[in-house]
């Protein structure tokens, strides 16, 4: 019965059919754009990943099946890159979230020149990453750099540290040693290399303002009267934070986490500028660029690109299912 009715309603010339046609017409430009800028490149990447294409021999690629993917599974550099990228993403996003939340709470309170401060904290975010990474790598320089100079003056370190060179030393070990808590490195300490930590610090410096801004928007959407009611009921500041602010901020936090994680997993510029293709800090995207641009391996590079796509999808799926985010 129902299907019959639907078929009737969709008869040519009927109102519904005309509306449907208009809807498709209106959607057509968007669909075309998506096909052109997303579907076609993705198809080409997957196609190349099944060939031995090289930039040195344009148009002469041979189909080689899954050979590139079999090689990928045994490629030690690729797995190092995956590990580096995950370490970078998890650590930087976590730190950015904690610091960003703190900054957002401060900016949400009433104080003089609040507008000015809100604008000012965005400066690190506004500087192009390539520029700020180069700036930081000069500041990290061992002999002439300002970081060592300040830390030495403050007696935070006892000797010059090669911040971007110490990929064999862990940051926790370095701190503990300089606090005279340990004298020899503790190898079993779960640690991130000083170099990776220095790069993460730059990313945190750059992105915390962005996270703070997203969370600030969330904070401002919490109505004041809830807090007023809490105060009347005698809830202290800490209790207010854990019982009101945090639960109501959860959607904003989740969106921020997804945004930032997906962004961090694609990290390229900060690592490329500060450490180039050094295996110690190589990320998935940096490795892919090296394969494509320096080694001319269009085929294998495309396979790596597909693998990056898969790794990022895994994270997306985990986030969406575990948090049951509703996008509507």
């Amino acid at each position, binding site marked *: 019965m129902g299907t019959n009715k639907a078929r009737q309603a969709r008869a040519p010339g009927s109102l519904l059919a005309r509306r449907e046609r208009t809807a498709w017409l209106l959607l057509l430009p968007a669909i075309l754009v998506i096909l052109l800028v997303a579907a076609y490149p993705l198809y080409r990447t997957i196609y190349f990943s099944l060939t031995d294409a*090289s*930039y*040195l021999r*344009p148009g002469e690629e041979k189909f080689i099946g899954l050979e590139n993917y079999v090689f990928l599974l045994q490629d030690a550099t690729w797995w190092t890159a995956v590990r580096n990228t995950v370490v970078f993403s998890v650590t930087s996003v976590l730190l950015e979230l904690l610091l960003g939340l703190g900054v957002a709470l401060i900016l949400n309170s009433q104080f003089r020149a609040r507008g000015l401060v809100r604008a000012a904290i965005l400066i690190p975010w506004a500087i192009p990453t390539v520029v700020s990474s180069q700036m930081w790598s000069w500041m*990290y*320089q*061992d*002999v*002439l750099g300002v970081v060592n100079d300040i830390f030495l003056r403050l007696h935070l370190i006892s000797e*010059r*540290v*090669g*911040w*971007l*060179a*110490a*990929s*064999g030393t862990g940051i926790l070990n370095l701190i503990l040693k300089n606090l005279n808590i340990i004298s020899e490195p503790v190898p079993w300490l779960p640690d991130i290399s000083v170099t990776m930590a220095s790069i993460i610090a730059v990313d945190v410096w750059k992105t915390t303002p962005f996270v703070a801004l997203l969370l600030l928007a969330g904070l401002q959407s919490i109505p004041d009267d809830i807090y007023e009611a809490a105060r009347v009921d005698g809830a202290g500041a800490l209790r207010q934070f854990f019982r009101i602010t945090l639960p109501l901020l959860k959607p904003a936090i989740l969106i921020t986490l997804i945004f930032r994680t997906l962004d961090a997993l694609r990290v390229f510029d900060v690592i490329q500028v500060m*450490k*180039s*293709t*050094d*295996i*110690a800090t190589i990320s998935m995207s940096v490795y892919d*660029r*090296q394969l494509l*641009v*320096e*080694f*001319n391996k269009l085929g294998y590079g495309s396979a790596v690109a597909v693998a990056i796509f898969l790794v990022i999808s895994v994270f997306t799926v985990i986030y969406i299912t575990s948090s049951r985010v509703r996008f509507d």
Partner: protein
Amino acid sequence: MTAKRWFVFVLSLGLAMGFALAQGVTITIACGAVGQELELCKEETAAWAAKTGNKVTVLETPQLTNDRQGFYQQQLAAGSSDIDIYQIDVIYPGTLANFMIDLKPYVSADELKVQNQGIIANNTVGGKLVAMPWFTDGGVLYYRTDLMKKYGVAVPKTWTELFAAAKKIQDGERKAGKKDFYGFVFQGNAYEGLTCDALEWIASSGGGTIIDASGKVTINNAKAAAILDLVASQIKLVSPPAVTTYDEEKARGVFQSGNAAFMRNWPYAYSLGNQEGSAVKGKIGVAPLPAGPGGSNVGTLGGWQLAVSKFSKNPKVAADLVRYLTGREVQKERAIKGSFQPTIPDLYKDADVLKAVPFFKDLAGRQPVARPSTVTGPKYGEVSAAFWSAVHDVLSGKSKAAAALAALEKKLNQIKGSGW
């Protein structure tokens, strides 16, 4: 009013005719940007432009040679005609041969004859002259003449002597209050420069050239391992902790600000170090690099060539600019102003050149060691990256040389596959 309008009309007509007469084409050249390279490139191309009535746009390219190579390949693979002339590294004529025009028809036999024939052979791929040599390079040891005298140290002949001398001077200078003073700086970053430096250590110790002329991987040997372990043991001792992030310019920064006793670098650093404002002006000595036990001192062959893209819209005019830049006159000027090593052997006897750069007379007869770029062809990029990564691991203390070289041998054979 009408008189004024008339005047404007005549003036614009005159200008238009002027443009029509001076009408030429615009040539874009991708020049290096290390030290004075860019500045000199702009000067020289402007002189040619003024002479021929053409225009030249000078494009600044990335400093690290592998980044530059990547940028070139992107342009060329896309068939872009934006760049007419490419400045290419001595290791790349083989890789880029298909994208460049044959320069033979544009250069006279005499102009070819005066060039270094070894480099011409390197730049000739399958009978096609891919690029004209512009300047050559070989690693040299820089030292501070004043400090050598102060501490009674002779110019080191072996690596062990170098590190001992570096330690002695470093200890003395630090005691005198220079806390940031280091003994020896070099190119330790994970990039092509480290391949050059490490090849010098290994070849000068009798450890071969990574891959021999027949294509066999020879890197896994005891002599190579010994010298790598020796250099690694000197980091933090006489070399800055971050020397494993230094490229040419970072090393020069430390040496030129008076903070190092010895430096490994290319000849270009000489004239910069002697410029006004340099802390070590007039105190720079240059010697061949030290050798290992039982080896002979060698510098890695570097250097840059000029090639014309086959996508160029004006290949004839571009080739003329290449002829001009690689000619005797410009090479002489570059030797004097920028201590760039000429590829014309005659210029090493030129009085003006030797007056500006005295150490060139010692370089004339030296046989540099070449990176295995010819035998590995298009796979050289991967080979070099695998090599510098392994060396970098040893320098950063992540592995011992013997283990790193064994793994490297395996990796190189894997890259080689059924053949180079």
